[in-house]
């Protein structure tokens, strides 16, 4: 690096000649002296030295056989060359150079090529005024309602006032970091946990920013905030689970309600359908019985008309037709019982079993009406014969 190049932005504990200052102590030799020493060292290097005797302050160049005039001449030329070199400097587009003339603030130079008086003017610092610097902070802190919240904050700022930034505060970045943390915690201390986590985040951001800018203005540090973001506020990891459970609980609540709603949506239409069916069936019944009644009544009326014309004959006819129709389909046993008080026992079940034992294995004893329907005509004949036999036997006994 060129030996007069100013140190980088934040390392402002160096003077323009790259020497570390002994901080807080009186520094012995003044700057010019140091310059000279430096100069000598450089000189001997340039001359392909190796014989650079770094005489404390004295300029016994090489101790060679050169005459005094020559030495002085060389020195003068070198000094002039250095002065020329030292009097021109450039400032980058993004920077402002803080120039001190014999220690006093002289000028704040804008981008471009500039001249300065060598040895008298020094560039204290070239401050980058457009670069957005950022500071990120994450920690846990107390809220106003005595909960703990973990916060991540990003502060973006610019050193807009290069003079203040370079000259007023020893560690601008450290001051900013401290002030930012303080402002953040202060505002968080005034907020509730709920505000910190949800509803108040924007307001907190605004308040922190305002507060921090106030602090910085009072330090005169030449920093302007570009942006302040509370990126993340979350409950401490120790209780994260409980917070997650609340979210789950909220979903559970919704789920339970939805399930109940689904149940309602399921049973009500079915009930409506059922109701509809009942009504339809009732309506059907009503129409059916009315229709049947009407039909039967009409039929009766018609028959009655015929009956009224010839009552006896019609009555006789109907009676006979009906009975013959009935007897036609049934197996008949004529029992001529002389004495009406005679109790006659016909073990019908048994008879039927005997008749059908070969073909059906119906359970005994419980009303054979249904079984009887299944009998073939030969079985019925069989059965009839058995009954007749039995009857005969009884009559014999009587």
């Amino acid at each position, binding site marked *: 690096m060129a030996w007069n190049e100013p140190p980088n932005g934040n390392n402002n504990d160096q003077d323009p000649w790259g020497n570390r200052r002994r901080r*807080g102590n009186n520094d012995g030799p003044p*700057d*010019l002296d140091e310059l000279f020493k430096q100069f000598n060292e450089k000189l001997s290097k340039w001359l392909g030295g190796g014989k650079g005797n770094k005489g404390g*302050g*004295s300029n*016994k160049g090489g101790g060679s056989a050169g005459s005094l005039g020559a030495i*002085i001449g060389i020195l003068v030329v070198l000094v002039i060359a250095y002065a020329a070199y030292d009097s021109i400097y450039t400032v980058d587009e993004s920077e402002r150079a803080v120039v*001190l003339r014999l*220690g*006093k603030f002289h000028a704040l130079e804008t981008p471009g090529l500039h001249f300065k008086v060598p040895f008298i003017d020094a560039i204290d610092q070239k401050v980058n005024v457009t670069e957005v610097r950022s500071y990120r902070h994450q920690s846990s802190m*107390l809220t*106003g309602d*005595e*909960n*703990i919240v973990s916060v991540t904050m990003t502060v973006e700022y610019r050193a807009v006032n290069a003079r203040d930034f370079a000259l*007023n505060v020893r*560690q601008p970045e450290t001051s900013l970091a*401290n002030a930012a*943390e303080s402002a953040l915690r*202060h505002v968080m*201390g*005034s*907020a509730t946990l709920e*505000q910190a986590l949800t509803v108040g985040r924007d*307001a907190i951001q605004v308040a922190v920013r305002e*507060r921090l800018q106030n602090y910085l203005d009072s*330090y005169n*540090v030449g920093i302007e905030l570009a942006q302040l973001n509370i990126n993340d506020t979350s409950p*401490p990891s120790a*209780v994260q689970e*409980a*917070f997650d*459970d609340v979210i789950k*609980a909220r979903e559970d*609540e919704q789920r*339970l309600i939805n399930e*109940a709603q689904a*149940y309602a949506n399921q049973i009500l239409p079915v009930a409506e359908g*059922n*109701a509809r069916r*009942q*009504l339809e069936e*009732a309506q059907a019944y*009503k129409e059916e019985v009315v229709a049947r*009644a*009407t039909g*039967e009544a009409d039929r*009766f009326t018609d028959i*009655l008309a015929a009956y009224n014309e010839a009552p006896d004959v019609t009555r006789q006819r109907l009676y*006979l037709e*009906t009975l013959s129709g*009935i007897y036609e389909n*049934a*197996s*008949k*046993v004529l029992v001529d019982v002389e004495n009406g008080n005679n109790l006659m026992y016909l073990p019908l079940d048994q008879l039927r079993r005997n008749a059908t034992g070969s073909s059906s294995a119906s359970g005994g004893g419980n009303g054979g009406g249904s079984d009887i*329907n*299944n*009998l073939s005509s030969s079985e019925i004949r069989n059965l009839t014969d058995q*009954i007749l036999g039995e009857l005969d036997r009884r009559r014999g006994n009587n």
Partner: protein
Amino acid sequence: MSNRNALVLVALALLVFLGIQSLYVVTEKERAIKLKFGEVVQADLPPGLHLKIPFIEEVRKFDRRIITLDTDPERFITSEQKGLEVDAYIQWRIDNVRDYYTATSGGDMFRANSILESRINSGLRDAFGLRTLREVVSGRGQEEPLSTGGRIEDEGERDRLMRQTTQQINQFADGLGIEVIDIRIKAIDLPQEVSQDVFSRMRSDREQEARRFRSNGERQAEEIRASADRQRTVILAEAFREAEQLRGEGDGEAARIYARAYGQNEDFYSFYRSLQAYRESFNDGGDLMLLDPQSDFFRFMRDQNGVN
């Protein structure tokens, strides 16, 4: 190279050296005092180029920029005897170089820092001791509610505490030649064991909230179900009512129709209806009938004239 030359060279060098020794520059960032045999002869030299007598006077320079002092976290007790870990930082600068030089035995910054730190610690300790935890954290009184919703009020006791402490310290720091620009609490944290208590309280708060959500869900679900069940019951009951009414209407109508028809000849009706009933009763065949040959039907079986 002759002796004369060497002499000239040496003289020249000496001259330069002397010049350098008698000139010094004070920059914008510095404050300087001039000492003559250790005694301060000139304090607070302005920035610029100055002269001094070489070897007799010496110049001490101090940083005049704002210096940040970050204190170590300290444990303070609030008025209700709760412990707090407090971390503060101080922005200060040298205000009066002469006082500073004498008070800190030659401008030793470490010394200045440690004096300041102990003073600030005791100042903060007093300030904390007069206030409750709530006051120092939130700046609100015990009974004063915090702002809610999207509004933050961060002005309060906490700012006042800082201002008062700063003023106090400044009164004292005057003698040190120091001006305290700002004292700020970076962090107020609960001690480890108290943090655990806070965590468990936060946890139980959340658990309560979760329970509230779940039971509220259950309540609403139960209400929805019950209401659905009720509606179903009502719908079915109403349907039953209407159905029965319809059936009744049908039955009534039918009965009226029957009555109108059959009322024309009740005797014939009972005869006719009985026959119909017989037919329906024995219509499936397979019945076994035990018949009395004496019945009317068999009249002509017994006798061709049917008299018996």
